[in-house]
């Protein structure tokens, strides 16, 4: 697949154009579209860490590929490189120095991609598709953590084919997040496990899920001292739970809120409820962004418990999102996430096929006052 594939986006630099009346529901926010997005749904996005100059975006997709773009300061995106797996790629992450990218795929392997040499080697093997991959950098060790549908969580030293450690989980891993020294894994059947990573990873606590339905995504947030203090958990039922690990007053501090539902507060007609596909925290302000199957993204302030902004509705669900390292760029991917399943009464197959078009990655670049920031300082 060539980098300049069939789906060339517009890639125009400026955003924030007022007064245009044409409703382009594919990109209603008039954000920058990344050039040559993948051909199939994008499952994950990751921006490069601050140790590396510039902004590089990695996106993994259901077309078995992982692509890398450079996002320049003027908003232009330049496709840089691409690697393939033999199965759809479910998760990607960067190493802390920004030289390597780790990719996890349904082909039960995880690979390490050295960007300088553009080579990949396999570093992990599971018995089932690998759903999450994260890089852990501890003072005394560093490793890759992979969570899989085979109900195990494994930790890999990239040099060895055997895992450093393997932890058993009660159910398949659906999503995870790592902010040293804490890791949170949400599994099937509403399982929620917190791990502590000091010295060596070990299970810290199993938490009774605050949500009633399937877990979909999780993201850890930090407190003012940049220590991880809790996480946000999203479910398929248009609800996000904010949960602190050791709150002074659990009943008051932990809460859930509804999002990604149609009809707002109008309770007369039945609401449409959409899954929350991804949650991402702004690295500087601590506000959180949620993206859902309804094709919208929203920004929230969890401390003030308010919604800051909701986007216009895109024509497709938004499947992944990510902030860059200084919070100026918010990337979100518009592609099909298999959620229409539930609305299909007849031939499912046809619906899937129709949906697989126009995948794109959009970048919302924050010029001053665009609404990404909180009004009060963090």
């Amino acid at each position, binding site marked *: 697949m060539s980098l300049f594939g069939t789906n060339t986006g517009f890639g125009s630099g400026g955003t924030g154009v007022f007064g245009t009346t044409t409703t382009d529901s594919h990109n209603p926010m008039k954000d920058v579209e990344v050039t040559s997005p993948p051909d199939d749904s994008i499952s994950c996005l990751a921006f490069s860490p601050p140790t590396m100059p510039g902004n590089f975006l990695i996106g993994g997709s259901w077309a078995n590929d992982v692509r890398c773009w450079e996002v320049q300061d003027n908003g232009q995106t330049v496709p840089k490189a691409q690697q393939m797996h033999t199965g759809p790629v479910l998760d990607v992450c960067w190493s802390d120095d920004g030289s390597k990218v780790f990719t996890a795929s349904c082909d039960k392997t995880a690979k390490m991609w050295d960007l300088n040499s553009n080579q990949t080697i396999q570093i992990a093997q599971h018995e089932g598709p690998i759903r999450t991959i994260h890089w852990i950098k501890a003072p005394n060790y560093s490793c890759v953590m992979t969570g899989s549908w085979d109900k195990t969580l494994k930790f890999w030293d990239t040099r060895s084919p055997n895992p450093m450690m393997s932890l058993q989980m009660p159910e398949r891993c659906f999503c995870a997040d790592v902010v040293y020294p804490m890791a949170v894994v949400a599994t099937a*059947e509403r399982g929620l496990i917190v791990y502590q990573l000091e010295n060596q990873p070990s299970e810290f606590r199993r938490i009774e899920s605050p949500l009633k*339905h*399937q877990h979909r995504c999780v993201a850890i947030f930090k407190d003012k001292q940049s220590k991880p203090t809790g996480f946000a958990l999203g479910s*398929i039922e248009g609800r996000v739970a904010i949960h602190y690990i050791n709150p002074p007053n659990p009943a008051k501090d932990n809460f859930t809120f509804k999002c990604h*539902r149609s009809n707002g507060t109008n309770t007369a007609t039945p609401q449409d409820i*959409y899954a929350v596909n991804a949650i991402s925290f702004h690295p500087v302000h601590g506000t959180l962004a949620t993206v859902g199957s309804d094709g919208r993204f929203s920004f929230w302030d969890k401390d003030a418990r308010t919604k800051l902004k909701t986007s216009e509705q895109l024509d497709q669900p938004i499947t992944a999102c990510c902030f860059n390292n200084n919070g100026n760029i918010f990337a979100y991917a518009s592609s099909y*996430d298999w959620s229409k399943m539930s609305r299909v009464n007849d031939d499912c197959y046809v619906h899937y096929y129709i949906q697989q078009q126009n995948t794109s990655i959009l970048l919302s670049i924050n010029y001053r006052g665009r609404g990404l920031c909180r009004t009060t300082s963090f």
Partner: protein
Amino acid sequence: MTVCNFFLQGRCRYGEKCWNEHPRGERGGDYRGTQQPSRGGQTNTHVLHVIYLTTLCFCEQNRIQIQPDSTECVLQNKYHGITRVIHRYRLLQMNSSDALRFVSLLHACFYFRDTIQKDMEIWQTSGQWPFSCYSVLPGKLSGFVEVSPEELRLEYYTGRASGDLQAYMNSVQQLADQWRSRVQELRTMSSSTRISVISELNDPSSQTSTHEFGSSASGFGTTSSSSSSGFGAGGFGPGSQSSSSFSFAPSKTGFGATNTQHASGFGSGAFAQPPSGFSAPAASASSFSFAGPAADDKSSAAAASSSVSAFSFKPSPGGSPAPADGGGFGQSSTRAADTGLFSAHSDLTAEELKEFTAKRFTLGQIPLKPPPADLLVV
């Protein structure tokens, strides 16, 4: 102020509004509109137990409304959409914390029932992802298969790659059908579903994990709504003398694949017979009075009370005279005791046990703890 004579007899029709004094601490039982004094020795404890049992069986048209702050229960009847207060019980002699405890347990039953039904309705109409587990505190409800969208999508992709999409379609169809039937079942809570749900919630340890995707033969498809007819079919018809078959087959319903050996935690499964027992002819307003057949309140003209008399505690023809009959409960007593609504034999002192096993309570020595399930006599 003069002491109200009627109140002392338990039949003051003015209740709170009475101009005479209603000394507190006397026997309460302030039955509005009933002409019958309560039998000697039958006090509020009995009342409460009756409420317990009868609410659990939960005829659709009867409802107990509990004000959480007070020790007051109001039994209402909704017939043709009109709510009438039939009896108002005041739990005077019971220590208020115990009363509240019972009341809150009842309240919990209702709450669960209401929440579950409402949630199911929302789930059906909102178009959210169907293949998710579902839980209400404290436990998880069985019958739902948890599959994430990614897993489903992977199945599709592998099916497509191998050229055989039919298998995928079939399994999706099957999952969808299972889901639909389970949701419908929970939404229209028949008495049997109610019982199994309540028992599941009360005993979360009996949960088993659900099936993974692809194991198509999960026995849930068989709906269980038809079962449970093993119960005292004729238990409560008018003039039933038998009050037989209190035993209910454990694992009664086809929820079968998993848990619920306790078909019901309450030992009152027999009551679960839907309206038939209650809504005798026109007036479904069943009067719960303890009094004999002649007791009806103003709301119901019909002497449907005969059917209700079966519930009364008094050892009248309808009721079973002795614990011996409660033998039917015996099988389930141990299980019922687990649920916490009834006490185990070991929890009660010898005197309390004696009180429970006696035909009537003796004034002044009525135990405050709930009776053991097997000693419940109706």
